[in-house]
């Protein structure tokens, strides 16, 4: 109940904040955003949503055609960063619109100054997940320090440079568990066919690595310490 209340309050605060923020559209300017959406095998993905946004307001939107191609004319934000959202339902919580595929978000550094945004071929991979169960064995007096790295289902890229277009292992979480810690489960969505990397140190010992495959249905890995 408390969690729900907290979520409602947080959502209301986000809405209030975003509705107060003013969007300034650049006069006398239009952008052309174009590209092609394919899956990890290179097959065209039709009907994928493509939007441009600034300050959480849609400046243009369209869908990829039967060949995966898209082209749209967009307005531009005068001072705020511009986002190009591929397969994103809403920029408030960044949920994938088509739940079978990953998403990409391209963001300008500051106000966008490019008139032509040719995103080239955008690969959206299928989605999978994994579950890591950290089990604290009673009787053992171990402490655990770990880093979990995996590929996000929402890949965030810069509009200016197209480095690491697949966002490999772009999500990194650090954690610590002592002998009194409760068991915990880490459920994460990621790219189907990728691996999550679990690096850990037991009692400040040497770092060891476990690779957890991302599958559909999810792989559950139990780690006991």
């Amino acid at each position: 109940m408390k969690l729900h209340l907290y979520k409602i309050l947080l959502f209301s605060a986000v809405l209030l904040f975003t509705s107060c923020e003013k969007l300034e559209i650049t006069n006398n300017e239009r952008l052309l955003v174009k590209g092609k959406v394919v899956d990890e095998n290179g097959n065209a993905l039709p009907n994928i949503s493509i939007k441009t946004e600034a300050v959480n307001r849609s400046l243009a939107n369209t869908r990829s055609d039967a060949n995966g191609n898209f082209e749209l004319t967009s307005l531009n934000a005068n001072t705020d960063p511009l986002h190009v959202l591929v397969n994103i339902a809403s920029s408030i919580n960044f949920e994938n619109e088509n739940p079978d595929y990953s998403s990409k978000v391209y963001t300008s550094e500051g106000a966008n100054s490019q008139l032509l945004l040719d995103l080239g071929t955008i690969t959206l991979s299928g989605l999978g997940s994994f579950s890591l169960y950290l089990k604290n064995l009673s009787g053992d007096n171990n402490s655990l320090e770990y880093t979990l790295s995996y590929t996000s289902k929402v890949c965030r890229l810069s509009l200016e440079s197209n480095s690491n277009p697949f966002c490999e292992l772009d999500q990194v979480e650090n954690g610590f568990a002592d002998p009194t810690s409760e068991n915990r489960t880490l459920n994460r969505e990621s790219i189907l066919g990728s691996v999550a990397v679990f690096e850990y140190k037991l009692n400040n010992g040497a770092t060891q690595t476990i690779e957890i495959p991302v599958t559909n249905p999810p792989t559950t890995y139990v780690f006991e310490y």
Partner: protein
Amino acid sequence: MFLNIRTLLVALLFSATTFAQQTETETEKNTNQEQHTSGTKVGSITVGAYLPIAFGENFVNDGMDLKMGAQMQLKLNVLGDFYIGPALSFFFADVNNRALVGNYDEMSNMVLGGVVGYEKQVERFDLSIGLGVGYSGYFNKGLGDSFEDNGTALWLRPEVSYRLANYVSFYVAPELRHDFMNIDVPSELKDTFGGVNYFNLGFGLRINFGTGYKFQ
């Protein structure tokens, strides 16, 4: 005898009256002709409806539904039949293709400029042709905000007006107009956003100033 005299008197009275009326009419006609040739034509003002019709490949024709507006023009005769004057027109539109023009809802266009032209009277008609140039603003609304596109409008506007009374006419004016837009776009969109073509239609009332417009 008395009957003959009465008949003669009636005949004389009728002929005298008729002659007098004819003389008065001719005098009036002469007076009017004199006024027509010697009166001054200061100018005119036209106020009326403005029906915009865009054509060709451009963002207005391909991405908007145009709605009626209004226009106003002042003509000041400066050199014989030549005139100059300011002109104002506006119209409204709804966006129907957001993927083409951008994600906004409404547009209102306003042109403010000047006209140079030539006008000639033929019977009850005033025929004119004017060349105008001015600022064309496209005021766009949507997303809870407004922004502007603008350019330079150039138009050719023949006008036919018919005098309903001495100083009041009805006019019809087709207009061929091109807006040279200032919108920055990549080369792929130059054809769509570089300029807009219109064949507009205006009609309404015209008020004439100066005794030179008096007619009858």
